[in-house]
């Protein structure tokens, strides 16, 4: 049996190496967040309730969500296009771990956008960027990342099973930014949309991260957010495993592993 950690690490390293060699991805990670952060901080700088840390965390979450959505639906299909899916499927390494490793690499790479936003806030605008509950923030960060990673892994078989549906899923990028309260609290949204927000794991990741960064989240509130994230992740991963097995078996049966 091959070590799961080894496969995850190898696939993550491969993904980071591929992204580093891709100018478009470098633009997405370094240049785009720079524009967003500069614009947001410039416009909001005079508001008395402006919290620059909210922008940094929100921009980071936005980057992570975009990666989960796009790379998730694209992960298996891109291997197929490159002709490497057959090599992976015929290797002893479980395909789910390979996909999971790739998503891990993408997310680690996208975290650089959070660093860019932090740098803009701290050095360009001279803000004091403080995390008020560092321990809670670290835990929330780990759980939030795990939750978004689980969604990305779940999206990978969906991207193959329902290719057209996967394209529509990509439309969810901005609605989730808004509904999950990445860049501004959902209190600004109409009341009817709040239950929808509550159903989204990224919302709970945002609650935990923004709350611990600002120091406004009590321990029970944090625990509730973390519990939702763990449950959602478990469901995502169980579904992903079954769907991936089903997809690969169907592809071996239909002879479509190598088709583009």
């Amino acid at each position, binding site marked *: 049996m091959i070590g799961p950690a080894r496969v995850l690490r*190898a696939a993550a390293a491969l993904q980071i190496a591929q992204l580093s060699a891709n100018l478009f991805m470098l633009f997405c990670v370094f240049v785009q967040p720079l524009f967003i952060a500069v614009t947001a901080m410039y416009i909001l700088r005079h508001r008395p309730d402006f919290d620059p840390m909210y922008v940094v965390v929100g921009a980071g979450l936005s980057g992570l969500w975009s990666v989960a959505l796009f790379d998730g639906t694209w992960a298996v299909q891109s291997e197929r296009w490159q002709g490497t899916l057959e090599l992976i499927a015929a290797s002893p390494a479980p395909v789910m771990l390979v996909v999971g490793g790739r998503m891990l690499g993408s997310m680690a790479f996208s975290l650089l956008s959070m660093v860019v936003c932090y740098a803009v806030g701290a050095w360009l605008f001279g803000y004091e960027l403080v995390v008020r509950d560092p321990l809670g923030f670290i835990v929330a960060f780990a759980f939030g990342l795990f939750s978004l990673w689980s969604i990305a892994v779940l999206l990978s078989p969906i991207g193959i099973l329902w290719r057209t549906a996967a394209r529509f899923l990509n439309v969810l990028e901005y609605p989730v930014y808004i509904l999950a309260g990445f860049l501004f609290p959902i209190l600004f949204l109409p009341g009817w949309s709040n239950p929808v927000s509550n159903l989204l794991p990224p919302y709970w990741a945002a609650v935990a991260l923004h709350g611990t960064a600002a120091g406004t989240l009590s321990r029970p509130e944090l625990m509730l957010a973390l519990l939702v994230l763990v449950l959602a992740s478990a469901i995502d991963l169980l579904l992903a495993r079954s769907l991936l097995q089903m997809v690969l078996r169907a592809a*071996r049966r239909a002879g479509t592993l190598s088709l583009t």
Partner: protein
Amino acid sequence: MPAIELNRVRRVFQTTTGVLRRHAKQIVAIDDLSLTIEEGELFGLLGPNGAGKTTLIKILTTLLIPTSGSARVLGHNVDREAAWVRPRIGFVFGGERGLYYRLSGRENLVYFAELYSVPPRELRARVDGLLEMVGLRDRANERVETYSRGMKQRLHLARMLLHQPPVLFLDEPTIGLDPIGARELRETIARLHAEGKTIVLTTHYMFEADLLCQRIGIINNGKLVAEGSPDRLKQLVSDLSVVELEVFGATAAAIERLRSIDLVDSVVVEQREVRQLLRVQTRAADRAVPLLVAALEGIEIGRVTVREGTLEDAYVRLVGRLE
């Protein structure tokens, strides 16, 4: 124990045609095929495009599930025991896909070595050794997108050998390679066979199969139409002679006239720039030559030679055409 056993394997593909009214269609790629390959054997699979060679290789490499029948590698079922089979086989498919182009050759190999759980302490030495073996050591740190077709093919070969599998599948590995690259690859295949690997090789090149393989199977329309050593297959055409006529501007009608001659078994046309080489199989060359020349009246004829049947001629006889 045989390395490979195919027992009445059948593989059917379902396709659909039409946009508004979709029609389902079944294509039989492998039809009731049985075959045994012993450990340490170098077995060649010959056949025209679409004959089922690649389908067979994909079944044996766990990438396709047979519709019926059973396929076993080293005694284990490739469908139900795929997890057991996978670490023990290596494969190369012809063509340039199947590599991460933005990464270097070395990075590609390291990645696959990790997926195949090559012991970490041996990984670097094994990757370096294989890069050396396939002649890519000097270009190992360059991106694969800058490699020539031959270099990519050699990188595939190195990838296949990373986990030192005892059974290898090579699907048209020399296709598109320059003559020197192809010869080097054949030498590598011969060396791997000498090391005791079981090798299944599909190829379009008869001389390659004749040179390398201990046994050859000829597959056509999903069926195994002949099987045996190259010498045994050549005996299938021992009663035949081949008349080769070099002509200029032979028309389709002229070729049909040749085919209609009683003594003619088959005619293969090979276009060579402005010339055509007509290969005519016949049982009585001495009597056939004057008839052939007469049938080509009005067409300029260059060289005419008569020779004994080769493996390629046996193939033409069995398959009925040459691509």
